[in-house]
């Protein structure tokens, strides 16, 4: 048995310790927002947060995540209202939508570390996430908007 803490909830799963965290989250914990795209850390569809850091769950062994804090897209906010989620909706970013769980999880770390990213900062931070529909221009725009929303949220709070 491996104990995982996903989105502040504990799960005891019967997994091979070598199983990638991706498949443990999807098939054993049952949260399917995290996506399989390439299996070799090339596309970023599987990005989750491990103790707050963005990791590629497709190449992270589930044993490495034992007892650590895992956050998936389902736990990014309670009401789909993280500044990035609000911005993604405002800018109509997704097309097919398959990559956007990973895009949002990568962007969330960027925005936490750099509350005012430039285009170049965004390009650097998001270059690990492939969007085959090509929504990159909107991703850039939405991250800028989310940065604005985040600032407003802080002044309000």
């Amino acid at each position, binding site marked *: 048995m491996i104990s995982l803490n996903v989105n502040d909830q504990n799960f005891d799963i019967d997994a*091979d310790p070598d*199983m*990638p965290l991706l*498949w443990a989250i*999807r*098939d*054993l914990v*049952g*949260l*399917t*927002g*995290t*996506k*399989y*795209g*390439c*299996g*070799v850390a*090339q*596309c970023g*569809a599987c990005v989750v947060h491990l103790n707050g850091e963005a990791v590629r769950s497709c190449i992270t062994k589930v044993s490495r995540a034992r007892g650590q804090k895992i956050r*998936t*897209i*389902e736990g*990014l*906010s309670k009401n*789909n209202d993280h500044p*990035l*989620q609000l911005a*993604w*909706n405002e800018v*109509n*970013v*997704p*097309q*097919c*939508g*398959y*990559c*956007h*769980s990973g895009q*949002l999880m990568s962007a969330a770390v960027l925005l936490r570390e750099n509350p005012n990213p430039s285009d170049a900062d*965004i*390009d*650097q931070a*998001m*270059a*690990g*996430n*492939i*969007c*085959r*529909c*090509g*929504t*990159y*221009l*909107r*991703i*850039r725009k939405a991250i800028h908007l989310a940065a604005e929303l985040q600032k407003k949220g802080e002044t309000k709070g």
Partner: protein
Amino acid sequence: MEEISRRHFIKSAGTAGFAIWLGLSAKGNPLMAMDIASANFSPYILIEASGKITIFNTKPEMGQGTLQSFPALIAEELEVSMDQVIIKQSNGEKAFGGGQSAGGSASIRTNYLPMRKVGAAAKEVLILAAAKIWGVDAAECYAENGTVIHRASKKMLPYGKLIEEASKIELPKNPKLKDPKDFKILGKTTKRQDIPLKTNGTAGFGIDVKVPGMLYAVVERSPVFGATLKSYDATAVLKIAGIKKVGPIERIVGKYKYTGIAIIGNSYWTVSQARKKLKVVWENNGHETFNTVDYENHLRKLAAEPGITGKNIGSVETMQISPENTFEAFYETPVVAHHPLEPMNCTAHVKGDKLEIWTSTQVASAMTGSGPNDLPKQVGFAPENVKLNNQFIGGGFGRRLYFDYIVEAVNVAKLVDVPVKLIWSREDTTTQGPFRPMTFSKLSAGFSTDGKLSTFQHKVISPSYFESMQANYDRTKVDTIMMEGIAEQAYEIPNLKTTYVRADLHIPVAAWRSVTSSTLAFAHEGFIDELAYKAKKDPMEFRLELLSKPSDTKKVLLKLKEVSNWEQKLPQGKGRGVAVWDFFAGLAGQIVEVSHHPDKTISIDKVIAVIDLGAVVNEDNVKNQVEGAIIMALGAATKPGITFKDGKTVEQNFYDNPMVRINEAPVVEVHILADGGKVKGVGEPGLPPFAPALANAIFAASGTRFRKMPFDLKTEG
């Protein structure tokens, strides 16, 4: 047969109490019924006494936005807001007929008027019903927000309270459509209901399906195309805990049938690990020597063949053009994979003579159709015994027009008596095809003594799409798909000839977003540009001079000229390129602006796109589609394609078959023309003009002409 599936559909629609269904007959006439089971039409609107209004969307959602745009056509005329209605996705039910597919940028362009007609007929009958109840003239009433209102008295009745009366009135055959100036939804930017689901992980794609008791499967296939199964040894696989079953299964793609070895077990991880222990011996049937280098040389040689004539306008052959006024060029494009980010997958459950599937497909109708190429026939089930649960599609781009992965999953599911989810790995998705084939183009043209472009010939040398699809393909005929658009451009050239030289290929080929226009536009519009320089003319003016008559192409070019400030000269080291392409899916043109740096690298400063639509449903969604098409075209133009060596696909995953990333995405500006003319497609037309516009811009900036895709964003000269 039809009755059964109708009842099935109604059960899933689940009406409570009195309800009316409104839809279209096969001939396109609006019809209404209280009892859909006995109605002979495709229902698109369901209004219930409770006030609940349901609109059915028959176009699978793959990111193109039809979940919103298709119902919007109905909602506009019905006078309901998009928030007021429940949108239900059809699942290949017989009631909806054969049109439940998404491809060819066709959803809106072929349904713009029919769907509005359904909505308008429904609204008219509801207004008539209210007028009758109130004892007033229908002309004194109007509809708004799902209610009918009597103008003078301000009396109001919601649609749900009108349906019983409406059911007694004959439905107008030719309802009056709204004046576009009164549109509340169409042409505006409206929210897509799927977007919130795609920002919090709740959108369900095929790969996310969970069915109780389900097992997982992978399939080992021959890496060499055209190989057959000789033997396999699963002893080591079957010793692994969690493995339930191993066995040979068939996959069908077009005319090709392949045998693979399915491994079924209790998790995807288990079966993919077990796959490494499977021993398979394939009979390569002589295909193990096939490679791209030799095949491309073969295509170059074939260019000398006369080929089959497609269009022959004027008299290209007998024209006397002096050699110094004759020009030739040869263009080449690579094989590419579709690479939707969601790998191929399907969950299937065989229950005796019944089949249920959960997947993401562009062709829902084919899952329950009765044709020889539909799924039921291919896997041996009666069409009425097949139930589809179509999910959001994690990218289509043409790949999911083919359901070889579904055939395969059903055959896997036949090996066990529980549901099985088959997942292709990214490597499977990269290597197994079907692929967009390469096209090589031999072009020649001649100017008459007065300097006018007089002759133009475009010869396409390529494998055949139809030959890949049909075992009985007639090789004496031109493959029209492989010749797409090249005889239909609006340029007024008096002598035009197109020819086709078919090349044998044993690898399955497919339509890829914008189909063959994605390669032929590069050759055709690149060569037009070359001719402009030969004629010592500005490439925009050269094109416009070939367009003396009014045409949509001319309109697009004039708009591009205006919005790009074409006449304003660019500084040294910068260049602009233009291209335009008209084809079955629609019409768009682009201008690319590039910088040629001292280190010989090229950067794209800006892309300006004009798309001609006739009418717009969702403005911002159109822009999103065009932006995405340009990114996809940039990848196809500048990233390595798919190659073959020793009979196998060389590239495996995104590390050796790279996609465009955010740091490479250029600035894109989209302009939409919508002047009420012919309604054209949105999803594909943004793609074909990009590669030629980029190559033309690079030439303008650097003097280097690229005639072979992919090209590096770097020049040698």
